[in-house]
């Protein structure tokens, strides 16, 4: 039996559960209401205010979350890797566990604390007797940003911790004996060697943020519509399948493009 025969079952399964639906989505996006092939759905969607707003929101949320994750992740990884403290190893292990958590769990936890009927507001109303607490940011884009940074930071820390463990500590010691203080060592010795890991982690988080659905849904932020949310509302709420498919195709294109970039970067890192 020729070897390619063994490839048939997985390809068949893949085609059935993934490629065929994907093709349908793409096909649907090129189908006008009348049933003929046309670019009309694209024209309609691109022209709509909702789509442009969702695209902007998605991109800036993703960019903001990525920058936040990079900064926070870099600082936290620095501390874990280079400042010996009791339990440091346990924290590093916990990061691995954290990666396996579902994204909505973080949002749920934040809701418990800062939600409109959460603990923080509960304490406030209990103490002051006011009708409602002062914490409403969770339903704004800032709440989504906070949740995304909280959830995705460990994804940046993983590659960073791996990169930091490769740095020869005698380099840091020699640098300090040459007269460099902590800040200079971080900037000129550690950061340059961590750049590839930062790029890889950042690209990964950017792609994941662009596609994030659970976090946005769970914060219950009415005004925050991202591309995945738009797909959801077009398809499920408005039953406008062509438009939903157009948005989905755009989302896929952006993600796949960024994933390609991520692969190129991570191949250069050798990760």
């Amino acid at each position, binding site marked *: 039996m020729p070897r390619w025969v063994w490839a048939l079952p997985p390809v068949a399964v893949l085609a059935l559960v993934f490629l065929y639906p994907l093709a349908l989505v793409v096909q649907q996006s090129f189908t006008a209401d009348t049933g003929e092939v046309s670019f009309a759905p694209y024209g309609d969607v691109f022209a709509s205010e909702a789509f442009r707003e969702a695209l902007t929101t998605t991109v800036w949320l993703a960019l903001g979350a990525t920058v936040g994750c990079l900064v926070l992740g870099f600082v936290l990884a620095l501390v874990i890797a280079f400042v010996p403290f009791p339990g440091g190893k346990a924290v590093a292990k916990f990061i691995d566990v954290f990666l396996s958590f579902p994204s909505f769990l973080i949002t749920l936890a934040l809701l418990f604390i800062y939600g409109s009927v959460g603990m923080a507001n509960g304490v406030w109303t209990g103490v002051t007797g006011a009708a409602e607490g002062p914490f409403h940011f969770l339903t704004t884009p800032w709440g989504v940003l906070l949740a995304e940074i909280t959830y995705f930071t460990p994804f940046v820390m993983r590659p960073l911790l791996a990169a930091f463990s490769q740095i020869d500590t005698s380099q840091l010691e020699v640098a*300090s*004996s040459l*007269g460099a203080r902590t800040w200079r060592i971080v900037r000129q010795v550690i950061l340059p060697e961590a750049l590839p890991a930062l790029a890889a982690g950042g690209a990964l988080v950017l792609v994941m943020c662009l596609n994030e659905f659970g976090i946005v849904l769970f914060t219950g932020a009415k005004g925050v519509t991202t591309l995945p949310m738009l797909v959801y509302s077009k398809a499920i709420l408005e039953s406008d399948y062509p438009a939903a498919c157009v948005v989905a195709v755009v989302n896929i294109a952006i993600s796949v493009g960024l994933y390609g970039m991520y692969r190129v970067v991570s191949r250069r890192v050798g990760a």
Partner: protein
Amino acid sequence: MSSGIRFESVSVAYGKNVVLDSLDLTVEPGEVMALLGPSGSGKTTALRAVAGFVKPASGRVFIGERDVTALPPYRRGIGMVVQQYALFPHLRVEDNVAFGLKAQKVDKAEIPARVAEALEMTGMASYAKRYPRELSGGQQQRVAIARALAIRPNVLLLDEPLSALDAQLRSGMLAELARLHRELPDVSILYVTHDQVEALTLADRIAVMDKARLQDCGTPQELYRRPRTEFTASFVGNANLLPVQVGAAGVRFDGVELSVDTQGAAEGASATLCVRPHLVGLGEGPNALRGTISEVQWRGSTHRLYVEVGEGRHRVKADVRELRETPVLGEDVVLHFAAEDAVLLGAGVSGG
């Protein structure tokens, strides 16, 4: 500003584990002091205490007249070279060398000349634009030395700088380091090594360390010709250590009278006699020892014979010039050594 390093009963401990036990040692300005010892002897810890990477549990460290015990590493003004070079991989050779100058806020206009000077001194001037990964191990170590010298330190710490190089490069670099020291007569050098040849070649004085303590300190000649302890005798060079009883005009070894200088040791005391293997001769002579050959190692220019001597079958090593006919195992031979080539080590020294 004077250089020199002074340890005043410096102890270092990790938890209950004492890794350096009240070290008292002075490195004079311009002196090369080798810290020689096996791994775990505390020699690297002593160097790290000077650099500021370990905090002494007690005692004080001085550089010149300055007490640096509480100073952070970046304020000590020390040049340091480590075994694995530790060059910054993303910086070119010239930027590696300039790193310390920039960190110390040396006038920008002055930096290129200082970098060129340091690279010139180590013979790496033509490699200024290369990256470390484009250099061989020996070249990387030269850059590391240039980087340490560029900041014009008064004290240079070398932590096993040649251990990662192969034997041939190592002897070349030894000569290079000796030349650098002649060109920089004011710099005090603390040189940590486990290699006796490096220590004997380079050092003005050697501090022998073992089990977290300073065991002995002296010039290479003193330590080699007149060691004071068994450890020094066996670690600085090779040694036969024979358990002997001090007699009236010599010592008694396994029933044989040997005439050596007893240096006034009390009669009847137990002591150890140290004889270097290359000073033991084959054939009849003064202080003859009879025995049988138990092992022969041919080393090219020499033969090393292991001879079991006397009733106690003590193993005596003899390094003799290459023999025309390799001795046969089990052959009866006579060894001898001159009285002045034997050193009686302090009576009461524990066996080892």
